[in-house]
């Protein structure tokens, strides 16, 4: 049934509210250790943990909803994709200037010390910038 209609219901849920909900044709995200995965309607049931990433939701009207997801989970069925994340930001909510500053700060810190925390900061900043389209190719 879902395969016939060619769309699936996508929901991005944060603890505070439902961030996004709509019909889509494809969702691309990135799992822990697994790399990027794309989900199309009719995908087998799937449960995954996500890393900091730039998630793309291809909506039925042809536009793309970009968002930065910082850790979380994805639950997929044939007709739905649900992303659970305690910190996810939609493209339009991202503060590019702040993310850029955070990226630079993390990069300078990386030169002096190498901690997992700084790495995570950098990955978060990357995900934000990538989702907001503000990531220059020179990174």
């Amino acid at each position: 049934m879902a395969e016939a209609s060619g769309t699936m219901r996508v929901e991005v849920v944060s603890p505070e509210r439902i961030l996004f909900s709509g019909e889509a044709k494809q969702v691309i995200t990135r799992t822990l250790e697994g790399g990027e995965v794309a989900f199309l309607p009719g995908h087998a049931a799937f449960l995954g943990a996500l890393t900091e990433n730039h998630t793309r939701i291809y909506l039925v009207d042809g536009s793309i909803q970009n968002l930065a997801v910082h850790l979380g989970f994805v639950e997929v069925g044939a007709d739905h994709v649900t992303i659970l994340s305690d910190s996810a930001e939609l493209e339009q909510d991202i503060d590019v200037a702040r993310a850029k500053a955070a990226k630079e700060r993390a990069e300078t810190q990386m030169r002096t010390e190498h901690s997992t925390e700084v790495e995570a900061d950098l990955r978060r900043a990357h995900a934000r910038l990538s989702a907001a389209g503000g990531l220059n190719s020179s990174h």
Partner: protein
Amino acid sequence: MAGGQERILRGRIRSVQATKKITRAMELIAASRIVKAQQRVSAAVPYSELITEVVRDLSAAGAGSESPLLAGRDQVKKVCYVVLTADRGLCGGYNSGVMRATEGEIKQDALSGRDHVIVPVGRKAEGYFRFRGYNMAQSFTGFTDSPTYAIAKEIGEYVTGLFTSGEVDRVELVYTRFVSAGNQEVVQRPLVPLDTKVAEGGDGKSEAGHDYEFEPTPELILETLLPRYVEARVYAALLNAAASEHAFRQRAMKAATDNAEELIKNLSRIMNRARQDSITTEIMEIVGGAEAMASGN
């Protein structure tokens, strides 16, 4: 003198009127915040329902067996109580209800030889338990009327830390559940180890009936998921407590306003009588004086 009494009464009425204005304002503020707090409670429901479902599916897939957060301990020597109260008073029995329930539990524990440690959330709990000399761990204050997820995360991380380090063997959450605007109840819920009943009931399959694919392994997902689940539980409790706090405050302030009205009514009555008395006395004095003068002639 009668005139003096009248002045004193007038002063008291003015003071009660001023208090009434304040309690009325607090009542209206609380009433408007209940609605917002209620919306936040229901906005948090989808996340916590989904995360519970995922925990179920994972443990049904056999991932839950060795997770430290799921396994209970055979011997419970020390129980941690996370007590959710308000930062401020003037909310009727809200704070005392939660604190009394906690004290009762601690007494029960003491009888069966269990030690306790309290993690107070809200200034009222902190002051109360510190004054009475209970064992205290870190306290969290300054946000109870509008809690954020970041705070829930902090509390969640702190108590799971206490549990995994072996400091405590059980963590209980004591808070006021918001049933409806007219009904709230103090409840105590186990937080860590997670209720095994929660983990039961999943079938490891989606509604469509397919087995789940996991990436990475179910164990790894569960490991990152359980702390989030604890945080979501703490967050839901914080939101419930905040909504209840506003509801309690609204009721308490409504009672205070009504009482002030009653007081003003009674005081005005006494004042009017005093005023009338003094006028009567004055007339009597004038009449008496006039008569004395007439008889003198």
